[in-house]
């Protein structure tokens, strides 16, 4: 207490030797990017002491309760626990994390190769066409940064329970008025008002990453990144044969980094589509389906559902019942001759609020920025066209 000593050394002295594996376990988890705070480590130690520990289960349960691994990583956690405390090394190799990284590594390599090939083609051609596309790309970038700035004020709003101070059009603010009255010795100066605040609605984008949408997915991801950066509460999912939430990846400010992270998470690029089943899967997770409640939902897909579209119809009906506004943007509608003629589109048209052109960045950003403005339902518009 009085004698100054090296804190690290002191810590090592006071810790019993038996505690070392516990610390080691926390370090192991951190190396697999589990977020574990120092505070949690100390309560883990306390918990183990409190429990005895009488058996390995006690240690395991103390770890579960205090280190709080997220439910979706529980299995991975178990594997690490086994490998650390039972020395079951083979388990780790089969672990979730490793499997995931293996897939992403392959994916990354593939992407690079494709990119390199494309660049070669460009070198051979090296024509005006390429310059044009580059310029277009820059224009898209400007458009996206404009989109990002405008988005939070352009999204549809709802009235919140919270109130804000206001000078006109509001209800009496008793709390502040009373303070005024007290400080004015009982005189009643002009009454102070408050009004319910408006907050932007949640914004949910579902991106189709199947093979038929190949040309557009990279644009869509850029748009999604701008949306996450610009809106307060945006959620982004991709779907193809499975469903992936990429919001967390897109929260990274730097776009290239964010897109690379997102690309690594999605493992059904350019595959087939099972739109109906994946959307149903989205709805069956309570956490996900509540993202859609009262939200502006935009689905970026061509809705080319092969085979039976009954499931797609059910999913869309449920989505539209939850959402504030359900829109489908399809790149096919960029063609002036486009008609919602496929069986799947015809079936879901009545539940859609909008069916719009998703073939270019400009049409999409314009559409999303106009979401707050009322528009006739999709079915009315397309009936009029045809």
């Amino acid at each position: 207490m009085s004698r100054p000593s090296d804190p690290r050394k002191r810590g090592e002295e006071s810790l019993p030797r038996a505690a070392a594996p516990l610390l080691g376990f926390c370090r192991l988890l951190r190396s697999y990017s589990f977020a574990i705070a120092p505070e949690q480590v100390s309560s883990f130690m306390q918990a183990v002491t409190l429990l005895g520990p009488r058996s390995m289960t006690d240690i395991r349960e103390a770890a579960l309760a205090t280190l709080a691994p997220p439910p979706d990583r529980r299995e991975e956690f178990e594997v690490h626990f086994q490998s650390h405390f039972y020395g079951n090394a083979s388990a780790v190799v089969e672990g979730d994390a490793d499997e995931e990284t293996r897939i992403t590594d392959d994916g990354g390599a593939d992407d690079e190769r494709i990119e390199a090939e494309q660049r070669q083609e460009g070198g051979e051609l090296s024509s005006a066409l390429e310059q044009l596309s580059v310029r277009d790309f820059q224009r898209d970038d400007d458009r996206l940064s404009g989109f990002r700035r405008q988005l939070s004020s352009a999204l549809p709003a709802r009235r919140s329970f919270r109130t804000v101070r206001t000078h006109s059009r509001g209800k009496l603010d008793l709390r502040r008025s009373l303070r005024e009255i007290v400080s004015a010795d009982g005189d009643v100066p002009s009454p102070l008002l408050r009004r319910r605040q408006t907050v932007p609605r949640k914004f949910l984008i579902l991106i189709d990453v199947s093979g038929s949408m190949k040309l557009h997915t990279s644009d869509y991801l850029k748009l999604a990144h701008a949306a996450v950066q610009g809106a307060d509460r945006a959620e982004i999912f991709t779907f193809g044969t499975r469903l992936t939430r990429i919001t967390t990846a897109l929260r990274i400010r730097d776009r290239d980094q964010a897109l690379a992270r997102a690309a690594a998470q999605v493992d059904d690029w350019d595959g087939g589509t099972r739109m109906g089943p994946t959307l149903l899967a989205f709805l069956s997770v309570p956490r996900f389906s509540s993202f859609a409640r009262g939200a502006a939902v935009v689905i970026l897909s061509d809705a080319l559902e092969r085979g039976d579209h009954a499931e797609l119809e059910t999913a869309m009906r449920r989505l539209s019942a939850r959402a504030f506004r359900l829109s489908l943007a399809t790149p096919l509608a960029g063609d002036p001759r486009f008609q919602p003629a496929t069986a799947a589109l015809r079936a879901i048209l009545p539940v859609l609020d909008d069916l719009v052109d998703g073939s270019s960045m400009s049409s999409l950003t314009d559409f999303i920025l106009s979401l707050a403005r009322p528009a006739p339902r999709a079915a009315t518009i397309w009936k009029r066209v045809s």
Partner: protein
Amino acid sequence: MPEANTETVATSPEAVAQHLAASRYLADDSLATAIFLAIRLGKPLLLEGAPGVGKTEAAKAIAGLLGRDLVRLQCYEGIDAAHALYEWNYQRQLLAIRHAGEHEIDIYDDRFLIARPLLQVLKAPRQRVLLVDEIDRSDHEFEALLLEFLSDFQISIPERGTIRAEAQPIVILTSNRTRELAEALRRRCVYHWIGYPDAEREAAIIMLRAGEVAEATARAVAAAVRTIRARPLAKPPGIAEAVEWANAATILEKGGSPWPEAFRRAIGVLIKDEEDLSYIATELGRIVEEALA
């Protein structure tokens, strides 16, 4: 005395489980451990799980086990300090000022203070347990407010100064995980994920909770519900619904319906979604028969 209470009740996870069972709540080992740790480490307990697995019931059982009152704060979007901490009774204050006339009056007296759940618990930490229910429904600002409360257990009222809890109150938070909670909040808590129980435990829960259900019925219900949960339903049935189903089927059976038929007719208390009903309708007969076998 109440202080000794926590010591005597929470001597080991097994003791906690026994006491919980006495207040009609069957906890598995790891939930009992988490509760034990939360009580002994003096940390809040964060319970997450799908709707209807008994998170709120667990909180009630913990309050019962400690012999304390449960103060429940139901969260919703837009909940703020005036709903959670305290509020002044302005109308009474204004009237009091009027009434006092020339006399001096303290309008920030206790009788003008409306204590909301957090303040109520702070005032009597040894007699009350705080349940912050469905915290995932509130917004981020409220979470931050709660964070401050949970770390220091004190509330500052500008007119009155800081009120501090004389002992560490017991706090239980529940979440349906409709959104991710802030890391800082998770970190401060003892965490437990409540899953659906296995068939045997669920049968035991049904026996305990439902009125006059035969053991065979309880087992059949548990087995059938387990199968139904495996189907891709919009709203998988929770434990409370399973208990209701067992109850309803028993009543129908006493009213003269034979067994598989009673289950089928009572399905409305188990599955409460029209689409789910039509999905399960074709299979229901088979599921019930398998469960009864």
